[in-house]
């Protein structure tokens, strides 16, 4: 056995009986090292490949949208309502605003309900039958096709009111947001260490306050991400809006009237036989994606600002 260059015996002792010096160049250890490094390299390459595989479609879609849609973007697109077929100009201003209105309704309804349900599951419902039922329902709801959400909102609101409305579209999207938000909120709250809750309770802070100011606050970056995911997902939904918000070729700001929405407008234009409308559909898709990205990024930046430095 050759001497180990990394090992120096303690003073006054030639060889420690407890420490058998390792020969790091022995055949076994060398082979093991080569194998370990090979596996390490292979897994690293796989991880990078997977990342690329995930990013490539995203970038490809975005670049293609830019290529197809950017040329049709002009001021009129953002300021004018749709023009009749054959007429020049026209835009999707009403659809952009309409999407904003419907999404605002969906967020106002869906986010509080989703977070509240998640708080119940994580903080109050541990081991209770009702919690298990809520969790199961949320998971099932997550898998329900979006058109079914549209039909539900249609039968619950539209058939009762006898007219399509921005509100019913918002409700349909809100129902879609709730399960995602509930489950992420629950999971994020579960990652908050129990010790932190005990710290608050030990100071004589009531449970509701602890949940609000300690658990939720600590978990807030994850919960915000969950809300943004849910928001981004429903922002591009067309199916739930088909027979709720219905679409509108004109300006409308009333919540109980049909309202235009970008995905709807894109849908109508994309299946039309006119080239001019096809180009507008591409432009609309580009605007939709950029709007979602901007919204998500803004919330991320805003949420990051409130965090303390050095917090783990």
């Amino acid at each position, binding site marked *: 056995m050759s001497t180990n260059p990394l090992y120096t015996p303690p003073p006054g002792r030639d060889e420690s009986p407890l420490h058998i010096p390792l020969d790091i160049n022995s055949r076994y250890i060398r082979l093991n090292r080569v194998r370990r490094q090979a596996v390490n390299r292979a897994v690293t390459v796989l991880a990078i490949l997977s990342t690329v595989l995930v990013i490539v479609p995203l970038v490809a879609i975005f670049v293609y949208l830019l290529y197809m849609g950017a040329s049709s973007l002009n001021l009129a697109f953002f300021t004018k309502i749709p023009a009749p077929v054959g007429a020049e100009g026209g835009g999707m201003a009403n659809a952009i605003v309409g999407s904003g209105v419907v999404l605002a309704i969906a967020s106002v309804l869906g986010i509080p309900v989703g977070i509240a349900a998640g708080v119940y599951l994580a903080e109050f419902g541990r081991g209770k039958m009702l919690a298990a039922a809520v969790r199961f329902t949320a998971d099932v709801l997550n898998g329900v096709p979006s058109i079914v959400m549209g039909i539900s909102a249609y039968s619950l609101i539209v058939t009762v009111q006898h007219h399509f409305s921005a509100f019913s579209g918002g409700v349909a999207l809100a129902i879609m947001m709730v399960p995602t938000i509930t489950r992420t909120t629950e999971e994020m709250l579960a990652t908050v260490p129990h010790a932190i809750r005990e710290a608050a309770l030990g*100071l004589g*802070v009531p449970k509701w306050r602890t949940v609000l100011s300690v658990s939720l606050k600590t978990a807030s970056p994850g919960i915000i991400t969950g809300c943004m995911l849910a928001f981004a997902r429903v922002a591009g939904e067309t199916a739930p809006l088909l027979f709720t918000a219905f679409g509108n070729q004109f300006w409308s700001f009333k919540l109980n009237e049909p309202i235009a929405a970008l995905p709807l407008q894109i849908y109508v234009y994309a299946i039309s036989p006119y080239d001019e409308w096809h180009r507008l559909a591409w432009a609309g898709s580009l605007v939709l994606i950029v709007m979602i990205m901007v919204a998500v990024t803004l919330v991320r930046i805003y949420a990051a600002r409130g965090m303390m430095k050095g917090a783990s």
Partner: protein
Amino acid sequence: MGVGISVEHLNAWYGQTHTLQDINVELPANHATALIGPSGCGKSTFVRCLNRMHETNPIARAEGVVKMGDMDIYKDAEPVQIRRRIGMVFQRPNPFPTMSIYDNVCSGLKLNGFRNRKVLDETVERSLKAAALWEEVKDDLKKKSGASLSGGQQQRMCIARALAVDPEVLLMDEPASALDPVSTSKIEDLIFQLKSQYTIVIVTHNMQQAARVAENTGFFLNGKMVEFDSTHKIFTNPKDKRTEDYITGRFG
């Protein structure tokens, strides 16, 4: 000023496990009392029963009389009120990760709706000084997160946080077991100073620590308090054979 605690026939359970069996003891005011014993003997459960933290676990329950001064904390008070008068320091430092040092220290006040800026400032300074941390953190009270401090500093911050709500009793559940020797000795010095104003109950695995900081020591074994006496007596001339075996290192 501290206030004494007297415990009569205290029993506690976790589910079906009878973790504390008929504990009777007087914890004198303005003294430090050490609780020693092997792991799982019920020391922690005992201190958690004193401020009703035990019952925050849904499967746990406790019965018996725990009197703080004249008040029976299980009959005459709400758990939330009790915990403001009986502060607690946990085994591992548990700062609020989203809060600055300042907010951590005054969290007990702030989370209970107290907002007076001037009083908060004073309380933070007084508590951090009492916890011997003021000099180390006074320059970045609001800049740094409580979680960015070292383990020993975090634990002293947690002690400051407990002191900030002005309790009469301070329960410490192995407050130095996760710390290095230097931080440990700082915490021990601190306990020594705090005794004049608070009644202190400290759970420890370290018998030298018990001998250094506490006037009285209780020995727990298998959910029972085997012996309670002055620290000197427990360590030099214990009455019970089991106590002697434990402190001489024959088991545990």
